[in-house]
């Protein structure tokens, strides 16, 4: 019995459990739900949960563990002689696995029956041909011993599969019966269900932690490689970024970090005031009709692919800023500049600030506004001094979202700000950001194992740590400011 079928069975058992639990609870009090501790539905849910969840977890664990255990027992079968020079035990195991899976496929597609397959095992060459025909890639001819190992692998897997079905069903039925037996008028079914929901919620929030761990792990390994090829000192302390194709590059992170901060800062300088004012206008002043149209319309700005913004920056905003600001002010004549990218990115970020802020401002109770109007405050005074502070925690969230998006953006920076890494205060100079360089270093033509490529991982990791620091700082500031209101 395979996992999909088991899942279906479990789902059915769950539905059945719900009905049975509910019915039993009601019958215990002769249909009068008032005699129960919890609503009848909760009794149904407990039975369903106990029937499904432990069994499901067992299934999951089994599916994860079985290959590992089988692998271990089979690995023990492989003799040192089976391992060709330049190869390794793991590689041979990969072969075993591939062969076994190929055998499985041969049987599944009906190309061979078990008997024919067993007959093929002593004839590795024939076996290889059959497997190749089935689309299984094999690097080398099959050693007879490997074929046997593969057969054993299959057998153990099949055994495991059977045991799994049995035990999962046993657990499910036990859970079902036990929880059904537990149903009694005084049984705190709601608490059980809620505790379960609580655990689900905790699990959901720990996905964030897991993602973080995952990101760190996926970056650390290659970053470590990078620091073996390139001195960490230079990476963190050098003020030049000038990678060369053939090696001998300067890979200092500061120009990139500076560019990131500068571009994001300008973008927020555009997006935050405009977004907030738009949010305020939409939630406080606009007619419902305007609001109903304008809000989703502005949200479309967030959905326009950034390449469109990039081209807009490159073809329109860049030359405009160069001809009307940079040149007259003697600030250089680069058409791609921090300013260009920042302004255009700011436009893209408007809905991130405006839409959520609008919702939050809308959620401020009317009684607060009334209190202020009643004192003779104008609407703008009310908004600035009463509504805005009350909505501040949520607005901070909105700005945070915009800032995050600014740091992660690539296309607008590439086309708007250029690719030159530079430490400069002049906003009309071309600069670039960490994110842009991560993408370009990772997708270039140089060899992967060179510092020029691996630096992408170190950049990612550094940016990660850097933004972590910024976030801690931001949280601290917000906390401090918020305390006086809560």
């Amino acid at each position, binding site marked *: 019995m395979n996992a999909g079928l088991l899942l279906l069975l479990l789902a059915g058992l769950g539905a059945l459990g719900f009905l049975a639990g509910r019915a039993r609870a009601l019958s215990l009090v002769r249909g009068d739900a008032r005699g129960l501790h919890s609503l009848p539905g909760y009794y149904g849910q407990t039975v369903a949960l106990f029937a499904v969840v432990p069994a499901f977890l067992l299934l999951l664990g089994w599916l994860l563990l079985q290959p590992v255990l089988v692998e271990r027992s089979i690995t023990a079968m492989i003799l040192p002689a089976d391992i060709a020079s330049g190869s390794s035990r793991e590689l041979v195991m990969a072969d075993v696995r591939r062969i076994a899976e190929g055998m499985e496929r041969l049987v599944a597609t009906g190309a061979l029956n078990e008997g024919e397959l067993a007959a093929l095992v002593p004839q590795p060459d024939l076996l290889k041909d059959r497997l190749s025909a089935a689309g299984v890639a094999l690097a080398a001819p099959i050693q007879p011993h490997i074929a046997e190992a593969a057969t054993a692998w299959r057998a153990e897997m099949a055994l495991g599969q059977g045991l799994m079905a049995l035990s999962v069903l046993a657990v499910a039925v036990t859970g079902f019966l036990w929880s059904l037996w537990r149903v009694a008028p005084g049984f705190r079914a709601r608490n059980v269900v809620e505790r379960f929901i609580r655990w689900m919620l905790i699990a959901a929030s720990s996905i964030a932690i897991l993602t973080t761990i995952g990101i760190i792990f996926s970056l650390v390994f290659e970053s470590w490689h990078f620091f073996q090829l390139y001195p960490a000192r230079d990476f963190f302390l050098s003020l030049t970024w000038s990678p060369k194709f053939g090696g001998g590059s300067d890979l200092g992170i500061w120009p990139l970090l500076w560019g990131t901060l500068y571009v994001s800062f300008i973008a927020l300088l555009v997006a935050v005031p405009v977004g907030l004012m738009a949010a305020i206008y939409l939630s406080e002043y606009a007619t419902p009709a305007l609001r109903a149209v304008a809000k989703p319309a502005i949200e479309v700005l967030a959905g326009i692919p950034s390449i469109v913004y990039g081209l807009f920056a490159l073809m329109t905003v860049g030359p405009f800023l160069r001809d009307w600001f940079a040149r007259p002010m003697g600030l250089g004549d680069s058409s791609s500049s921090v300013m260009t990218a920042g302004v255009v990115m700011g436009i893209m970020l408007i809905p991130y600030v405006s839409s959520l802020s609008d919702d939050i401002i809308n959620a401020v*109770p*009317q*009684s*607060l*506004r*009334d*209190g*202020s*109007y*009643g*004192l*003779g*405050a*104008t*609407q703008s*005074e009310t908004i600035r*001094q*009463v509504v805005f*502070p*009350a909505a501040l925690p949520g607005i901070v969230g909105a700005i945070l979202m915009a800032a995050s998006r600014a740091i992660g953006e690539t296309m607008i920076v590439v086309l708007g700000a250029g690719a030159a890494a530079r430490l400069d205060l002049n906003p009309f100079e071309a600069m670039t950001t960490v994110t842009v360089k991560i993408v370009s270093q990772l997708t270039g033509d140089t060899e992967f194992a060179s510092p020029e490529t691996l630096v992408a991982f170190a950049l990612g990791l550094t940016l990660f740590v850097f933004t972590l620091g910024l976030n801690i700082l931001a949280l601290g500031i917000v906390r401090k400011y918020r305390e*006086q*209101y*809560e």
Partner: protein
Amino acid sequence: MNDMRLTERAVTQTAKITARGVQVHYGTNHALKDVDVDILDKTVTAFIGPSGCGKSTFLRCLNRMNDTVASARVTGKIEMDGQDIYDPRVDPVQLRAKVGMVFQKPNPFPKSIYDNVAYGPKIHGLARGKAELDQIVETSLKKAALWNEVKDRLSAPGTGLSGGQQQRLCIARAVATSPEVLLMDEPCSALDPIATAQVEELIDELRAQFSVVIVTHSMQQAARVSQRTAFFHLGHLVEYGETGHIFTNPTDPRTEAYITGRIG
């Protein structure tokens, strides 16, 4: 206490606010029906009547707070100092600066106690400096009988006060802007007798210069503080006149029934 002091007072007879044929609809709900009232200057007017009869609604018409309720529709004419306050040229903000309000449900701002009170004076520019502002805050809190309880925690949030304290904070907030007319919607509902007496004293004091309109459910309070009383019932203004007259000699049977506790 001094329950029946009204006889000793002279009632000025100039009308501060005149309302004629005021009707209010909330959607299809006809909440206020054809109300005519003159609110006299330098007088305390009490609105009484069973819960839901339209007292708050009428109060909110007087400083156009009903503008903020989308479903509310106000018709009729309300004049203040001879000027139609629903004239489109009238700036409701200026109106509300002159006609202050204490709401039925205390609604302190999520700010510090100090900022709650200082808010009005700040936006109206009533204080020339920090010291003067401090002075206004202190005076207002004292008038609202809250100073002693909060003087050590002026920077604590106003929302962390007890119900009665919040109510007094809202009174202090309204008083701080020195309005010409003060509308008070059940200002003493959450107050103990002593605090109530203090607020009543405040009202009496304010009367020397301003009009005060107070909504109350306590006949005793109405009798104590007001010179004129209006009785509302089911959206109608049933009777309006000298407080002494209303309480001792009502003309409408409904008024009498309400005062003696027979209709609600």
